[in-house]
């Protein structure tokens, strides 16, 4: 699987994503500057976590206007896989590649801790190696991960099996509607999620529950 990681000004999980990708796929990821207008020939594009443009105005808003986003949209249009993690998820909603919006955590505090998640959907290139209903634990680290959308959108996401990860009952760190932690687009090739799978691929660093996501992608895209 060939992959690229987009670097926005003040992305800060770009190296983490690249390290995880290299560790899991055995080949280095392309680092793509936000001002570039083209993506290299890759199967997966990762929009990493961080604070693109300082998270000023709204998280992900300015990054969604970057040149590279047109290319990311075209890649998604062609059926290429796109994974937005944390700030990357925010960029995806701001670019309208995913519905809804991410607003301030309900308790207004930045939260960094491990959360219990349920894998709700395994019919996707991102999660086929998980079991449906499997409980996994990923860290979150964000101040604005509270997913909101109108009822109709929420119903549709659920009805179409596009809610991929949910915070386990009682462990919702941000007040997200219906405990939503990660969602797919209609074509199921774009995933955005607030928790960080790339931070749980190394047993020394608090777990390996994120590995199956990369293994799923490798199987689906190679």
């Amino acid at each position, binding site marked *: 699987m060939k992959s690229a990681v987009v670097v926005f000004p003040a992305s800060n999980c770009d190296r983490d994503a690249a390290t995880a990708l290299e560790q899991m796929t055995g080949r280095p990821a392309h680092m793509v500057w936000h001002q570039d207008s083209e993506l290299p020939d890759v199967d997966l594009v990762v929009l990493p976590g961080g604070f693109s443009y*300082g998270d000023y105005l709204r998280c992900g808003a300015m990054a969604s206007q970057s040149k590279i986003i047109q290319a990311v949209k075209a890649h998604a249009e062609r059926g290429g896989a796109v994974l937005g993690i944390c700030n990357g998820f925010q960029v995806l909603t701001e670019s309208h590649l995913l519905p809804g919006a991410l607003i301030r955590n309900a308790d207004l505090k930045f939260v*960094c801790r491990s959360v219990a998640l349920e894998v709700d959907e395994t019919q996707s290139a991102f999660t086929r190696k998980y079991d449906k209903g499997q409980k996994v634990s990923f860290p979150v680290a964000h101040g604005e991960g509270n997913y909101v959308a109108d009822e109709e959108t929420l119903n549709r996401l659920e009805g179409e099996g596009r809610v991929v990860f949910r915070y386990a009952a009682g462990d919702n760190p941000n007040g997200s509607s219906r405990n939503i932690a990660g969602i797919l687009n209609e074509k199921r090739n774009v995933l955005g999620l607030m928790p960080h799978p790339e931070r749980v691929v190394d047993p020394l*660093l608090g777990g390996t529950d994120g590995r199956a996501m990369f293994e799923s992608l490798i199987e689906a895209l190679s």
Partner: protein
Amino acid sequence: MTAITPELVKEHGLSDDEYAHIKRLMNREPTLVELGIFSVMWSEHCSYKSTRVHLAKLPTKASWVIQGPGENAGVIDIGDGDACIFKMESHNHPSFIEPYQGAATGVGGIMRDVFTMGARPVAMMNALRFGEPSHPKTRHLVSGVVRGIGGYGNCMGVPTVGGEVNFHKSYNGNILVNAMCVGLARTDKIFKSAAKGAGNPVVYIGSKTGRDGIHGATMASAEFDDASEEKRPTVQVGDPFTEKLLLEACLELMATDAIIAIQDMGAAGLTSSSAEMGDKGGSGIELDLDKVPQREANMTAYDMMLSESQERMLAVLKPGREAEAEAIFKKWELDFAVIGITTDTKRLVVKHKGEVVADMPITALSDEAPKYSRPFEIRPAATGAPSFDKSKPVMASLKTILAAPDMASRRWVWEQYDVSVMSDTVQAPGGDSAVVRVHGTKKGLAITTDVTPRYCKADPFEGAKQAVAEAWRNITAVGARPLAVTDNLNFGNPQKPQIMGEIVAGIDGIGEACRALDFPVIGGNCSLYNETNGEGILPTPAIGGVGLMKDVAKSATIAFKRNVDVIMLVGETKGHLGQSIYLREIEGREEGAAPRVHLPSEKRNGDFVRLLIEAGGIDTVHDISDGGLLVAIAEMCLAGKMGANIRLPDGSDPIPFLFGEDQARYVVAFPSAMSVRVTDTARNHGVPHVLIGCTAPDKLLVEGIGELPVSELRTAHEGWFPRYMSGEEVPVTN
């Protein structure tokens, strides 16, 4: 030209003698700009005039020290061509005025000190002291400071991996916010601030200059700014986004060989950075202020030289490399301007609108800066072993202690920090030291900050020794070899002989401990004049320590791991209750002698514990500090989500044994099959040790005394901070 009146001199914080000396050095009256430059360069903050003679006594050398005090940060060699660069600094006063921005810019400032030397910051720590919880300002300050630290550090993408939080009434009007940054570089790619050579371009990079935090602002606004309607805010606002760009741009420029010298603009911005670079390089510097990127209209030379706008750097480049550098800063969308040139005159010359507004010998700002041997008086240390009520129920006391503001879990704090970004955090907050892997290797850095201010109050010398010893112990407890420290000396007014005595004794205590433990001081910061209504804060010489381990996979943690592991107490227990948490929280008294650190025992016991961890198989260690043995064991139960059965050695007095704060001690747990090997090794090394029980499910039990479910301990320990911060509870303590 503005006449320099005695009032103006006074408003610049210069004494009559100092001003007379300035006139001698200049051979004339200074201009206003020159006066401003002298005032900041000769300030306590920049010149260390009260402490320099004493700081000179600290041990600063070891074979692994690449750079001791004197540069922006200290540097140690951690093998394989890797260097670790670190420093701690205070932002106390600004954080009291505006907790969010004060703490945030404190974080930003210390990061610049580290990346200006070529390092990528990899870990942040924060040592915080607040007033008593019942004080009306405390909650607001805690909330703002923690948000500010997180706001800046999280955006930078550097994990904040530990720190300290204390509450005490002596900080009611003067909180302490000390931040430490640890970075990594290659030993052959370390950048310094000596602007050697003449004719080299001086370049300004980063944010534009505004009128932020200008000293003597009251005076300045009356003098030069009749147009402005508002009083100028002296608070600086941090812009972590720009800092992140500045970090990446600087590291990119550093990968070339275009830089001769580079220095962040910290306190006293353009003034101190240019003066220090010229001083260290033995050169002169000529600045043209018209070239300085400016945020506001009509800025005066005085404004620009004294501005403390954040996220700025000054560099000296090799001639002809300007375009290359500029391209990098353009890419990162940062301001870049050539604002001057180095000369061979050893003078700082500042031009503005075609006029020379300052022209002064650089040595007048450095070597000639005042240095005082202030009178000091060493107050006798508190003595005696306090009495206590033997009938108080031990388990209830344990619960009370675990829920005390100084002892309760700091989870509420650290969950607001990104602790795992950069994917190298092996041990996040909650243990003895944070452990951060050196990216791409098996090596790890162990990082801690420590000081117990109540010991320092009772006995400044022993207390300072203890701070070093505890840092050394915390690093040892995870299995790392302690290598070096940075200090942050927070004290009251040095012009009071009693306070000066605390400072002198404190520095001597640090020196003695660092020498004995082979733990040199490679950097530091002094924050003096910390007072509330004329009362000094508790003397607070915070110690930031860094150690190295060869293989992070072997790092020990405090969590009990297996049922029926043997629990061993390492070190001698006499039951020292003076100045203990037990005495304060249960008996309501702060008295008696502070515990003494016997440095040879400290070293012997610690070396033994490290040996056990390094040999493999021992993965559970906790040092014993605040609260004593039973608190340490309770913390190990909480972290491991399991219990323990403890048996007191024959003849021991329960309360002093369980809650005494004797030094040089650790709790170690291991499978019983290892008992013989471990006890033999201890005997061979002459290390006092005793087996005191074993791990167990669910309950902490002390034989013949009582028991508590771990869940109940958890509720007590985890509950206080969130309850307090949500406004539900304002306990009256200390």
